């Protein structure tokens, strides 16, 4: 089934080489030709933006918004300083695709950042990596950036043109919320990561109060080849509404977990096959198809679903970041949502009351159920909290915490009920650990 599948042709195209992350490898594979061509032929900004719009490339961080349209929101006539920010704060649970781009194909990202900066008229671009990448991932990106500077592809008067674009590496310090684009701007400005009210949107008023575009690593790394091969090349892959390739991080109960870059619209069944099928010959029970923020789907529905934005939405979930978490028949769904709820409670920045209180409330109710003290009313409570959070917060973390809880109760209510009927309790589970200790954990770590 996977024999004729096109694999790792875009963001992971260097993986077939011996030293995937080097400048030489990237050049050998035709790298930086797009950027040189833009400078040499003085391609207009509009031409580039139009090609990216026409290609149908959608933001790969999770929101799936048209990349070219996002770029077009920048007022080119404005004399304000403009910024490009690359969001490399990869932290949506289940997602590990950007880390591999940063480690194995950093030059595609740098070239994409140069093209995007040029298209929006930015002379300064920042790549913000999550703090936990501070060791090898950050080093890989920094080394690549140095090579690009040494070869005069970045900096002042690039390749003797009048184009100046500086790219700076930045490092975070551990906060899921900083992946939200306006929280990232706050963090770059040296503040705690509190998302901003929108409007004004960053394209109008972003970093240091200036027009700013924020794009995900995979999105930017996709740009050079789209411009090089043309929008029709990209559109010839995938579906009409979801064209192109997408990196999927497959994890959980599969034989060959990892990242797979495949055409959008490929069936989940094929992706599962690619990831080596189910571990230990077990049956598929459930899948979280786009990172822990999206609704869970039962396995039988997923086996009939294709991996593109529309198909997954029609099935009742979201493609999100492309993090596919596979769960087999032995999985205890209450434990899974307990862990997810704990994460959002821990990572809520606390700025908005519905999220600050709601995430803690959901976690505590699930914790009570899993410890065998739950009642039927607790399930009703648990169903009512997401409705109070969704749509009432500045950023999407509230919704991200609410959606999974709703979906887990919706599809696996009987498992919650088995805890309430005392048929199941944590002592019987295979995940005994001190994480279930009754110690109260405070909203923020300190």
């Amino acid at each position: 089934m996977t024999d004729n599948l096109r694999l790792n042709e875009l963001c992971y195209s260097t993986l077939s080489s011996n030293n995937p992350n080097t400048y030489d490898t990237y050049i050998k594979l035709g790298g930086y030709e797009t950027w040189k061509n833009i400078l040499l032929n003085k391609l207009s900004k509009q031409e580039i933006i139009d090609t990216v719009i026409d290609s149908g490339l959608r933001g790969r961080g999770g929101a799936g918004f048209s990349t070219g349209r996002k770029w077009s929101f920048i007022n080119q006539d404005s004399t304000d300083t403009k910024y490009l920010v690359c969001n490399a704060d990869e932290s949506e649970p289940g997602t590990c695709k950007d880390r591999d781009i940063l480690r194995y194909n950093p030059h595609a990202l740098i070239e994409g950042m140069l093209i995007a900066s040029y298209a929006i008229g930015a002379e300064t671009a920042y790549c913000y990596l999550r703090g936990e990448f501070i060791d090898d991932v950050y080093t890989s990106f920094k080394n690549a950036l140095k090579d690009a500077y040494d070869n005069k592809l970045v900096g002042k008067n690039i390749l003797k043109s009048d184009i100046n674009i500086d790219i700076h590496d930045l490092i975070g310090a551990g906060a899921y919320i900083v992946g939200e684009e306006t929280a990232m701007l706050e963090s770059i400005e040296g503040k705690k990561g509190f998302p901003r009210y929108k409007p004004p949107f960053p394209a109008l008023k972003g970093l240091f109060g200036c027009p700013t575009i924020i794009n995900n690593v995979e999105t930017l790394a996709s740009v050079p080849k789209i411009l090089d091969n043309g929008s029709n090349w990209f559109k010839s892959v995938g579906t009409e509404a979801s064209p192109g390739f997408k990196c999927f991080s497959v994890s959980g109960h599969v034989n060959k977990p990892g990242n797979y870059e495949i055409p959008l619209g490929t069936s989940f069944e094929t992706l599962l096959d690619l990831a080596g099928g189910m571990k230990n010959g077990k049956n598929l029970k459930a899948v979280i198809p786009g990172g822990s923020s999206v609704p869970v789907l039962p396995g039988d529905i997923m086996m009939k679903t294709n991996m593109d934005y529309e198909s997954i939405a029609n099935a009742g979930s979201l493609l999100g970041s492309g993090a596919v978490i596979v769960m087999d028949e032995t999985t205890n769904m209450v434990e899974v949502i307990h862990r997810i709820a704990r994460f959002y409670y821990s990572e809520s920045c606390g700025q908005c009351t519905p999220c600050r209180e709601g995430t803690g409330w959901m976690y505590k109710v699930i914790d009570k159920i899993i410890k065998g003290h739950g009642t039927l009313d607790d399930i009703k409570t648990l169903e009512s909290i997401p409705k109070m959070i969704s749509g009432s917060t500045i950023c999407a973390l509230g919704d991200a915490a609410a959606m999974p809880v709703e979906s887990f109760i919706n599809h696996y209510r009987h498992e919650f009920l088995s805890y309430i009927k005392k048929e199941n309790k944590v002592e019987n589970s295979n995940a005994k650990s001190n994480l279930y200790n009754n110690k109260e954990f405070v909203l923020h770590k300190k």
Partner: protein
Amino acid sequence: MYENNNYNISSEIITKINKWLQKFPDGKKKPAIIYSLHLIQKENKYIKPEHVEAIAEYLSLNKMDVHEVASFYSMFETEKIGKHTISVCTNVSCMLNGSDEILNHLEKKLKIKVGESTDMFFLKDERECLAACGGAPMMQVDHKYYENLNKEKIDKIIEDIEND
């Protein structure tokens, strides 16, 4: 050397902070807070109030500006911890692959609970996914990745660090 009454930021760190500041528009000092805290934590293992004061003074900022960053981001430790920080990912993908057993094994081996520290090891209560889901279960030791863990691998990693 930059002198504060209680803590002197070393000239190496000052050089690095000054270089970092060049990434930002003239006069913007706050964007160097996170990086400065990283540098000082690396040297001192954890952030003390005098470190916060020294950074604020050097960058001409309010102490509170630095403190709120130090207390917001989970990588900054403000209490005394051991020499090496171990973060076991216990988020969904790792949990499905037995991260809790890995954590239990470490707790027994190091004779501490998650969130506690010995002189040598700090077993951090890591709640974030560390973006290595394809290698679950995984952990970081001082932010170096160790993937596809099992008890034998853990024993070897700990042994190697202890003998280093």
